[in-house]
């Protein structure tokens, strides 16, 4: 190992896990011992990552007490050292980590997931959304084979807990509702309209249609799926209603004819 490699390896091990081989490389002085000097980097590493998780996971940060949040973040920082040049992606495994380690607080992982999905939508690629006029102008024979390309920002997640309500309260700085199970599993769609991240929960039939359409099923197949939810006579109107809603929301980036 070259001298430089050895110094960097030992230094990094000090910052990541307090490995003390680095002490031999560093000059101490009255102004600071070798240990005090290396500790500046050790502390700064944790504080910086704590801060970035706080800004990318505002719902989680607001929902947890200060102590809980710091404990969770420090455990995560130890388990998942950053591997990316951009600090932006540091929290990518946080939701999974919480799911693994916080079985007593299942809503923590759900909140982290909601934050992550919002964060992804924030700077996903820009695509002009299909307009209602464009949809209305389609020829009658184009409808059945019609498929959809969704905006790159569109994501869906299934929630069991009222984390969206808690998130809203955190955002508005209002008293938080108690964490509660929802009446049933609920799909929430998250996307960006121009520069604003939007989200709404969806009824079961619409969520199923969204999954189908995002899996590249044609509009007629999507509608066929709606027969599981509605009487056949109601399906065409419901299918058209859902599609119009998606276009109005700005979810669809391109119609594939």
């Amino acid at each position, binding site marked *: 190992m*070259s*001298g*430089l*490699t050895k*110094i*960097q*390896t030992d*230094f*990094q091990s000090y*910052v*990541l896990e307090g490995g003390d081989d680095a002490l*031999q*490389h*560093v*000059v101490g*002085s*009255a*102004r*600071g011992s*070798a240990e*005090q*000097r*290396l500790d*500046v*980097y050790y502390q*700064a*590493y944790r504080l*910086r*990552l704590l801060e970035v998780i706080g800004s990318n996971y505002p719902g989680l940060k607001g929902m947890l007490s200060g102590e809980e949040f710091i404990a969770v973040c420090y455990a995560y920082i130890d388990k998942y*050292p*950053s*591997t*990316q*040049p*951009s*600090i*932006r992606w*540091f929290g990518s495994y946080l939701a999974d980590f919480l799911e693994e380690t916080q079985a007593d607080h299942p809503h923590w992982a759900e909140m982290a997931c909601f934050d992550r999905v919002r964060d992804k*939508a*924030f*700077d*996903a*690629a*820009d695509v002009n959304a299909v307009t209602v006029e464009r949809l209305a102008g389609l020829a009658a024979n184009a409808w059945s084979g019609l498929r959809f390309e969704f905006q*790159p*920002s569109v994501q869906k997640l299934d929630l069991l807990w009222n984390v969206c309500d808690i998130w809203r309260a955190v955002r508005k700085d209002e008293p938080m509702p108690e964490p509660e199970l929802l009446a049933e599993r609920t799909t929430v769609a998250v996307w*960006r309209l121009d*520069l604003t991240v939007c989200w709404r929960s969806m009824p079961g039939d619409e969520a199923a249609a969204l999954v189908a359409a995002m899996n590249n099923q044609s509009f007629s197949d999507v509608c066929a799926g709606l027969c599981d939810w509605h009487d056949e006579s109601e399906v065409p109107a419901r299918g058209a209603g859902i599609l119009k809603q998606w276009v109005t929301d700005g979810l669809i980036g391109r119609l594939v004819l």
Partner: protein
Amino acid sequence: MQSSMRGNLGFGLGLRVEHYQQVLGERPAVDWFEVISENYMVDGGKPLHYLYKIREHYPLVMHGVSMSIGSTQPLNIEYLQQLKALINRVEPEWISDHLCWTGVHGRNLHDLMPLPYTEETVRHVAGRVRQVQDYLGRQMLLENVSSYVSYQASEMTEWEFLAAVVEQADCMILLDVNNIYVSSHNHEFNPLDFLAGVPVNRVQQFHLAGHSYNGELIIDTHDHDVADPVWELYRQAVKRFGNVATMIERDDNIPPLEELIEELEIARQIAGDVREAAA
């Protein structure tokens, strides 16, 4: 490789999210902005939207924090591809990163760790700067960092190291005046010796920033106004290096834009005083 950019942009600020709307709405009298490259290595949305709009009205320079030019792990090609793509879209006046390392063995500490000042390191870093400059098709600037450790292995001063790297690499210098002050305190050297050891024709840009005390050590926190001794050192730097593009970095505890613009006036004033005294 074409050498020596020089050409003075004047007095700039770091572009921060908090000021996006105001910069676009009011077009304040700031000569140019510096942006953190990594913040714009994303697919779309707000960051790129504002970046392109502001680019229409101001010259930009791109400042990176993750090149890890001094690391012993191979250069991150994916990162350099993203950097090059961003350069092509933004067309910055120039780009810079730090004379430091940020991680090894696939890890990133997201910090600017100092290098040992040895001949081995000079060769290693200069070779990598040449590779990067060849890949990007342009010269880059290397910035001196604030540091809290020095190494037993070092064979020369920080300024001798900086000078040797930029000569061997044929790159330019982003001289951070606050970092010189911070390191001179932490490692007990005379900051004027640092200035005197830096080759004049390599300095393309100055950084100014605030710092904080942590016990006996000074930390480069960028969360305060520029301190008086740093202004004094800036005066000496302008005397030695002349008219060099200057900007103030503020990353934490971010004040209203007006306050930063006022602070930038101090820099203009000092540079003006030095010019007059010389005339």
